[in-house]
């Protein structure tokens, strides 16, 4: 048995042990044991994924596990990439979770259920990419959804009533949407398996070529909708900004990285590997969804004042960028441009890796703030840098990555994506010429807005003065929390400085989809070379140059300042007295210009009420300002739908009058009608 097999067995064993410990042990030992086991699961997954990326293959058939079909598992480089990402995130997040859940039980994260389910959730995150038949995939997918739902609901019995209601609403939205997505997935894969004549992925691969194009299209649309919903793509996203903020922060970190990634994995696996590419309209749909998610997600993030909600919308944006890459890859492959297709897919995958690193760190840092202050509202934070310096540093590092600026780690994926789109213009065809420029524009727009969003998050939460008592009394988190974040920060830094180590793995993953006829990019310790486009990027040198420039500038400033005499004086305050915390930018005020620019898109609800003093109408006693930026898709798409369903439910109550005869009559008439149809059939 290969390394992957042993590692997978180790992951299963440690997750089972973790679940047992979580269910059986009391109090603090429970949290520690479950966390350690989860971390071991993550480490095993990381080992398995790394081995697969280096070229190892593994497959297994367990006939006894899920009779009558059995469970098929197989790991190739594509699975390996997603397993490695999941494992790489699970390991530090589990360490973080030990510290997070131990002291502060306000979120129910230390409860027996949550601690027992967490290792299982981590295990399903690792095993979903390894599934190699429809039944095993659906089983693991559903287990993943169920365990994550339980974890989202961890806080439903703690905290103030409003928070509990929010948790329940989030759980309801998440549960319903994830089950609807599962229904689509079930329909799509069942149709695929029935028509292809087998339920293992090998049989699907062989059978896919003989299917009529209508069936292929239906399968793709059904499964792609399900996977896009899991990835939080925009019309199907409303669960994401609800569930991710309400979950305990280490769970949010896992859900927002490893779990949403699996949506993209499913799309790539079905679209490229099992169905072996498809016509143009499939990929145009994917690309349009991605563009919509990227633009809308980051706009909503810019408006959000809840820190975790902001991060959740940013997840929607980043997954949208990955979808753009996947859609572009399909488009190029259909038009015959193998090289840009492979590059676009590699860019999408690289962006997922980077996003997983910085987003998990962001969620962990937000959780650290939440743990110290009990606050998620940016407008009431402030001044946390001096009170929580380590958390602030980690948040800044991750925000640099999320802003997609060099030398952050998010930059490389987006740069690669732009490269592939720009070079994709060489692919012949009118559609590419029409579609690519707007896609490039969307990526540029989202990158710009992302910079504003993370300046807002970092600046408002950590700088200036504390805007409330809770922010002023914040204390730095315990060592386990900081250690977990430290591991993630090291991961971010490594990805930012030496992304070349990933190059060969990415090439192998892209090759596993059957897309590339040669490696799209080769990595080295010092940079990434795009083989087909003769382009090289060395982020390490860029970072060195940037650091050198910064140091030189700082040194020069010091030198110049030393020449001059320094005098200490009070800051000029325009005669308004000493500046107070209320004078600093809040998240709302920082976002206000953006809100004006995108007024038509966001349709905010704003309410300004001025109360005049009784003596004179010109003397203002108080001004009350209220702003809400509702999710327009929810408003326009989901609310009418929900109202219609509710109305239908009320109307259908008239069918049930309480007469037993009527109820029996329904059954009888149904049976007779069915029999008549059967009898009338030739």
């Amino acid at each position, binding site marked *: 048995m290969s390394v992957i097999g042993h590692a997978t067995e180790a992951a299963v064993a440690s997750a089972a042990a973790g679940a047992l410990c979580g269910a059986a042990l009391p109090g603090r030992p429970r949290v520690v044991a479950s966390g350690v086991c989860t971390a071991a699961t993550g480490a095993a997954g990381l080992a398995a994924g790394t081995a697969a990326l280096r070229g190892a293959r593994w497959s297994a058939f367990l006939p006894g596990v899920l009779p009558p079909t059995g469970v098929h598992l197989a790991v190739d480089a594509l699975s390996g990439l997603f397993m490695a990402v999941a494992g790489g995130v699970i390991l530090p997040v589990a360490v973080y979770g030990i510290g997070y859940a131990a002291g502060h039980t306000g979120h129910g994260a230390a409860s027996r259920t949550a601690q027992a389910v967490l290792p299982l959730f981590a295990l399903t995150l690792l095993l979903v990419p390894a599934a190699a038949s429809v039944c095993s995939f659906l089983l693991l997918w559903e287990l993943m959804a169920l365990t994550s739902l339980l974890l989202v609901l961890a806080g439903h019995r703690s905290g103030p009533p409003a928070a509990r209601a929010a948790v329940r609403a989030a759980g309801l939205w998440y549960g319903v949407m994830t089950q609807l997505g599962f229904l689509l997935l079930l329909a799509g894969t069942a149709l695929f398996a029935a028509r292809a004549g087998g339920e293992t992925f090998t049989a699907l691969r062989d059978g896919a070529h003989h299917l009529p194009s209508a069936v292929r299209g239906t399968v793709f649309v059904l499964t792609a909708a399900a996977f896009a919903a899991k990835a939080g793509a925009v019309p199907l996203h409303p669960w994401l900004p609800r569930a991710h903020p309400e979950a305990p922060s280490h769970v949010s970190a896992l859900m927002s990285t490893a779990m949403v990634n699996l949506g993209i994995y499913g799309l790539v696996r079905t679209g490229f590997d099992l169905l072996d590419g498809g016509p143009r309209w499939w990929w145009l749909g994917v690309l349009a969804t991605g563009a919509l998610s990227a633009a809308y997600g980051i706009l909503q993030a810019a408006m959000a004042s809840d820190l975790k909600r902001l991060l959740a919308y940013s997840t929607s944006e980043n997954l949208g960028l990955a979808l753009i890459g996947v859609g572009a890859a399909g488009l190029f492959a259909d038009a015959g441009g193998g090289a840009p297709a492979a590059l676009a897919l590699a860019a999408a995958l690289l962006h997922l890796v980077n996003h997983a690193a910085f987003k998990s760190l962001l969620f962990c840092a937000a959780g650290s703030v939440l743990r110290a202050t009990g606050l998620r509202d940016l407008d009431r934070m402030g001044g946390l840098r001096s009170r929580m310096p380590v958390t602030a540093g980690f948040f800044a590092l991750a925000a640099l990555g999320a802003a997609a600026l060099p030398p952050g780690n998010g930059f490389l994926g987006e740069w690669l994506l732009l490269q592939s789109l720009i070079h994709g213009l060489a692919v012949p065809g009118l559609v590419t010429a029409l579609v690519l420029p707007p896609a490039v524009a969307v990526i540029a727009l989202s990158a710009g807005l992302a910079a504003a969003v993370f300046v807002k998050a970092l600046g408002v939460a950590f700088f200036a003065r504390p805007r409330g008592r809770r922010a002023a009394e914040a204390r730095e988190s315990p060592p386990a929390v900081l250690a977990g974040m430290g591991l993630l920060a090291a991961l971010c830094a490594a990805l930012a400085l030496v992304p070349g180590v990933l190059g060969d793995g990415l090439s192998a993953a892209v090759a596993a989809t059957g897309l590339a006829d040669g490696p799209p990019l080769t990595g080295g310790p010092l940079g990434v070379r795009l083989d087909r486009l003769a382009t090289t990027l060395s982020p390490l040198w860029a970072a060195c140059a940037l650091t050198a420039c910064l140091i030189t500038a700082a040194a020069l400033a010091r030198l110049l300042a030393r020449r001059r005499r320094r005098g200490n004086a009070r800051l000029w305050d325009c005669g308004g007295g000493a500046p107070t915390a209320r004078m600093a930018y809040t998240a709302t005020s920082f976002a206000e210009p953006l809100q004006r620019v995108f007024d038509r898109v966001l349709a905010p609800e704003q309410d300004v009420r001025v109360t005049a003093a009784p003596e004179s109408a010109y003397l203002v006693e108080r001004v009350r300002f209220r702003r809400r930026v509702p999710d327009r898709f929810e408003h326009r798409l989901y609310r009418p739908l929900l109202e219609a369903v509710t109305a239908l439910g009320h109307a259908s109550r008239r069918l049930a009058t309480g007469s*037993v005869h009527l109820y029996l009559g329904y059954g009888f008439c149904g049976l*007779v009608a069915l029999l008549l149809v*059967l009898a009338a059939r030739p």
Partner: protein
Amino acid sequence: MPGTLHAQLLDLVCGAFLLAAVVVLWLRQLASIVRAFALQGVALAGIAALLDGHDSRWELLAVAVGIGLLRAGLLPLLMRRALTAVATGPAPLAGDAGGGASGSEAGSTAGSGGRAGGTGHHYAEDVSEARETQPLVNVAASLLSAALLTLLAYAVARPLVALHPTPATRALPVGLAVVLIGFFVLVTRRRALAQVVGFLLLDNGITATAFLAASGVPLIVELGVSFDVLLAVLVLGILTTRMRAAFGGTGIDDLRELCDR
């Protein structure tokens, strides 16, 4: 010719089986309905005994005896006991609220009887608990519907019979027809006990269909089904007496009051 004789006997028993179901539709006196049901139980036991199954003959005979004891003996006995309890039982709830309601109902029925008095019907005496007074569909229409349902059963079962035409499978539509007639009784009869009989007809039909289609059912399966039916009848018997206590009658239309509006 034992083969022909056997086929004819099977047809005869199946005919009796179907006829008993139709008789249930035709009768009004609940005690007679129970008797007809017992007759049907005997016919069902006969079907089981006449089948020449693949496996041991003795097991089938044991199943037949068990069915006969249960469906022609025990279940009718239980129903008759429930019937006497309901018909001669004490006045419900000391005759206060429930008695008042049933009294007003009796009055209204008597009024309508008075209007129809010219045609010779006396509805006033039909209020007794021992009769199925006013089925939702009258008897003539019920019998006509039974004929139509039997036709439907034959039409539906055609492809099934064509799969493997033997005397047993050719009688398969009878089982289906009894299922449909049992369901029809459930839909149209008002008295709780008539409902129980309808349910049991349905179950008899299902059992007969299983026997005829599969040439016999293993003992263990039949045992499970029988215990199920027995429990259902026990529960329904208790429910009937409770209804009598709560509403002063066993018309299941009274259950409408339980609807949450």
